[in-house]
């Protein structure tokens, strides 16, 4: 079991509507706080393998792992500003994207 530099979560885009989704405990979630966290390389590989299968099942596209920081409650927040943006929505339109629905 080899360590990861940072914990990771799996992101993707939903095929039918393009919305950003996160792999949760039992399937794709729209709220990143519910994403399943990989803490070592094996867990990350398992997330990726799941993602590949989901691509093959034509449910999602553009699947990848992103580094996260864990809050006190254990909820993950992406570390890079690109994925920080993806979990919310455009920073210039707070009325759009997930942030508008209060998920972020």
């Amino acid at each position, binding site marked *: 079991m080899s360590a990861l530099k940072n914990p990771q979560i799996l992101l993707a*885009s939903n*095929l*039918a*509507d*393009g*919305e*950003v989704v996160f792999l949760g405990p039992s399937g794709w979630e729209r709220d990143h706080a519910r994403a399943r966290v990989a803490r070592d390389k094996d867990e990350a590989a398992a997330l990726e393998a799941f993602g590949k299968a989901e*691509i*093959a*099942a*034509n449910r999602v*596209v*553009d699947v990848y792992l992103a580094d996260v920081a864990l809050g006190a409650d254990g909820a993950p927040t992406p570390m*890079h*500003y*690109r994925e920080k*943006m*993806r979990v919310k*929505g*455009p*920073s*210039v*339109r707070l009325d*759009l*994207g997930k942030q508008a629905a209060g998920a972020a």
Partner: protein
Amino acid sequence: MTAHDPSLARPNAPVTTYRYDDFDAAFVRERVAEFREQVRRRLDGKLTEDEFRPFRLMNGLYLQLHAYMLRVAIPYGTLTARQMRRLADIADKYDRGYGHFTTRQNLQYNWPKLVDTPDILEALAEVEMHAIQTSGNCIRNVTADHFAGVAPDEIEDPRATAEFLRQWSSAHPEFSFLPRKFKIAVTGAAHDRAAIMVHDIGLAIVKNDAGEIGYRVVVGGGLGRTPFVGKVISDFVPRAELLAYLEAIMRVYNRFGRRDNKYKARIKILVHEKGIDEVRAAVAAEYAAMDRSVFSYDPAEFERIAAFFAPPPYEALPAESQKLRAARVEHPAFGNFVEVNVARHKTPGYAIVTVSLKPIGGIPGDATSAQMRLLAEASERFGFGELRISHEQNVILPHVKQDDLFDLWRMLDAAGLATANAGLVSDIISCPGLDYCSLATARSIPVAQAISKRFSDLSRQRRIGKLGIKISGCINACGHHHVAAIGVLGLEKKGQESYQITLGGDPTFSASIGEILGPGVTAEQVPDVIEHLVDFYLAERREGEAFIETWRRVGHARFKDVLRREGEDGADI
């Protein structure tokens, strides 16, 4: 009976736009039906993403940071009021109530669902619009001067040529899988408003000594990772030879353009690596060897197309409107609008109006569906129902009676669309950057907003004068930062957004690529840096000199010095 039958004309159809014939209409309808089937098969799982991607890209559908994005072509930037209304309706029904006008005279929807896209394309097809060739390695939407047909300095309306080229290039079997995307721009005027020097092929309509109309052809310009100003491959190609000549260029590019490296695949690299003389010789050889009969020029066909762009039924008016003169004096805000956003028209008594989509602090190029409808309405009341989209991300009303300018201004002003900043510091071109674009390395819109707010005082902007600021969120340069007087490029440095400033870019016939000012700065520092540069320019400029002229005379080094000194003062730039 054809679609050109006058009895079939739409009641509000302006006479100055191309109208589909049966062939065009059937072609677009078939493409929509085909895509509907492809989407169905994708959702059913019969097509994988790898199989589907080329199909969606052929129909302008991308996958972005938060959602899909659909890019709709606005050929040579010309729209009818009816088309503009349809764009608004689509924004409401299938998107989130707005659209983004781009530097390539396209409209991008940022939130369409894959499942809705066929319906959107169908709604577009009903008003003779589509998203074909707005993506992929083909000849893209042909762009043109947004003052086409009305500019006083015009030799000929470039839209007839652009439409002629569109018909030649649409679904061209040989050029649907080029090494890379291919962009053509056309201008017909003494001033280049279409940035033809930085396109794969730029065409300038010219008249030779014998008075014949032809084209100066420029190839190998482009921005992106390796920016180049194009080179003249021919000073004069007669109209009768244009298609065959362009076909020869395309074949040479298709054969010799690099396919081994995406970053080196544009024709600009071919021109750079081989040299323009060798490329010219190769094109001449191809031209001589090819069967040109299939491109034999039919003047009647060109005239048929050109007839669509005939001037609207203008009234005979005095050159100067007394009403306008009085209103300018009485309403200074209107006077400023006229001074900045209204341009001279070739027909006496008329004017060209630029409606800025850059309100102070706004998102450059965004228009809400309500604004789109208002602009459609304004064009019908005051401009023969015709609109243009400029590569500067603004909307143009090309045929407004001077007598009507005040009423138009009041209508625009009430809707927040009368910002008098066309061509000034806050008329900023900005790509969507990391707020939407999956390729971005930094945001660009918030930087544009911050600069716009810093220079919010419009009278100060007028004192500064013409100054193009252009921002891109990555090296692809969709925001044209390389050809800005002041360019801003968003990059990533050590996990942070960082911005590189360039000076001295020029998108016109005297094109030049901007020079880098120094190390990158943070987003917060960008307005400060620009303010220092502007102050230095104001101190140095001679009577009547634009920023770029002062920069050229004074030299890059001294502009750079200003910032170095600022840095030593502790400004940390």
